[in-house]
């Protein structure tokens, strides 16, 4: 029994949440349109969370991802206002993300600061930089090129349902591509296995000849670039950029990875489990909004679900060890 709960408790819980909303909202929840909707709403969080998984595999954290997402958005937007072509602005924003990630990597691996402290400091720096770059203002309207804003509204037509077009959103496809790429890297390359080795025991990995410092540095670069990508997706979705708009992504991304960890066999972060965590958070938001649950109650419930999931997992683990 404990074994079943340990392995499947959270998965059963996630399924129960979906079934609950299905029952409470029979007409609108379990529909293709709603799920395509949810997939689009979650696309930015998915990108941040799966790239966050890369550092969490090593037992590290990156608290600066939300601030980086904001910074990347305003960097691109301010370049737009200066007349830069879209590809140039996007490349510059991604370069900022990569550079920020490398900075985190250097602080953590080369200098040896605790990730919590290092990325808390860079969070503050990136956030300050976002305000500096934008002058504290929101960039929107004619300053944002139509093509950039249209990207988030475009998608792959899937045909029609009830006389209305059904579209697989471009943002969803984009997030799926990033997820696939990170999944391949983490689960099917030596590089990924070495990151897991560092997470298991950094010292043992080092003794086994794994270049721990270099790998940790590169993993943070991944996360930084992912955060910047998510920031650009966000800016496209709202057709504007302000210096705080991505900040909320950080806590949700970490929560998603933790939720995901409760369903993995080894209790470690895995990309697909992280996606399950992201979907759980998104389904809660979507379903509770449709049920007209107060937005503050919604927040409390989401936190409670995380606690329940992690508790079930912890209790299951203890039960398996026979106390």
């Amino acid at each position: 029994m404990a074994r079943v709960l340990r392995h499947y408790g959270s998965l059963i819980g996630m399924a129960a949440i979906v079934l609950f909303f299905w029952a409470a909202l029979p007409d609108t929840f379990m529909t293709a349109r709603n799920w395509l909707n949810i997939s689009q709403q979650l696309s930015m969080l998915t990108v941040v969370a799966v790239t966050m998984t890369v550092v969490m595999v090593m037992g590290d954290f990156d608290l600066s991802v939300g601030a980086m997402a904001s910074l990347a958005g305003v960097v691109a937007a301010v370049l737009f206002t200066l007349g830069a072509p879209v590809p140039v602005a996007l490349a510059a924003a991604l370069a900022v993300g990569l550079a920020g990630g490398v900075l985190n990597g250097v602080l953590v691996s080369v200098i040896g600061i605790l990730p919590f402290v290092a990325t808390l400091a860079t969070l503050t720096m990136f956030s300050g930089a976002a305000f500096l770059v934008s002058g504290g203002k929101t960039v929107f309207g004619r300053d944002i090129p139509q093509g950039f804003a249209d990207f988030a509204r475009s998608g792959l037509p899937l045909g029609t349902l009830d006389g209305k077009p059904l579209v697989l959103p471009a943002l969803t496809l984009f997030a799926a591509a990033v997820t696939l790429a990170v999944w391949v890297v983490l689960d099917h390359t030596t590089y990924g296995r070495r990151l897991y080795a560092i997470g298991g025991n950094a010292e043992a990995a080092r003794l086994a000849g794994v270049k721990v410092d270099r790998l940790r540095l590169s993993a943070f670069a991944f996360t930084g670039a992912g955060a910047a990508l998510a920031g650009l997706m966000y800016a496209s979705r709202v057709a504007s950029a302000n210096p705080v708009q991505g900040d909320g992504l950080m806590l949700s991304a970490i929560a998603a990875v933790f939720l995901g960890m409760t369903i993995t066999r080894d209790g470690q972060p895995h990309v697909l489990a992280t996606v399950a965590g992201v979907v759980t958070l998104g389904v809660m938001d979507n379903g509770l909004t449709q049920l007209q649950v107060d937005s503050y109650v919604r927040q409390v419930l989401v936190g409670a679900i995380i606690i329940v999931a992690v508790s079930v997992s912890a209790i299951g683990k203890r039960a398996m060890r026979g106390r």
Partner: protein
Amino acid sequence: MTGFTRRAVGGLALAAALANLGGMAHAAGEKVAVITPYLSQPGTQFYVEAFQARAKELGWDVNVIDTAGDVAAVISRMEDVATQGVDAIVLNVDPAQVGAGLDAAVAANIPVFGMDAGADPRIKANVTSNGYAMAAETSVYVANRIGGAGNVVMFVFDAFPPVQARGVIADAVFKNHPDITVLDRVTPDVSDGGIADSRAKMEAILQANPEPGSIKAVWAAWDQPALGALQAIEAAGRQNEGIVITGIDANPQARDAIAAGGNFEASIAQDFQGIGKTTADTVARVLGGEALKANVIYVPTRLITSANAKE
């Protein structure tokens, strides 16, 4: 097995709590979603509370959704309530930023209303204050107070369309008085909030016009430059020359200055409660089948002077 029982009980309690919330949702009446990223801001709270009060009288089931500053979440929640099939959506965010959400509402045939949100073809009506009227009130106040003659300093900000509209009206009013001369039309640097730079600009103008009576009034398109000008005039020791200052918005600092009875004599207050109530009434009109002719609906504003600044 005891561990399992404990978990099962916990799970049941959670399920019961969720089911309870679900049950609460099925109240009678029209379903209206109010979505804003700015609920923590005082003005927004006034709108929303007044909207809720009116909606209660109308027997609606209102769901106020605060996304705590997250604009993308506004789009997501608009999509969610469009899927849910609410009867109307009320927004308090610039429609230019939530185009995808407006598309979702239009596709689901749900009318969207703006509560001081901005105009958009996909919005049935935006309920707000009339910037032109506000500027007319304060500029006419200035013209009357100085007897239609003398030098006036204007503080404007033409880069921001709502404030630019105010300046246009003041220009027209002052031009219509042949004996009023606009001494300077200043655009302050607002990156520090607008007070400090306006003060610096005003100090320079005072320096250039040292004769008492050479400046009769300062008309500011919003309160911050008016406060800056007031500081400059007081710092120069020229507060007894009868220079009349007006602002717009009647923020708390401006109200204090006006109540103190100094040079800062008037500002304009928007009726936030009125905007909330009128928004609810406008939603009711559309739900009742009326086709609105005007897609911007103005709620009257109020001139604030020392007589009513403390109210």
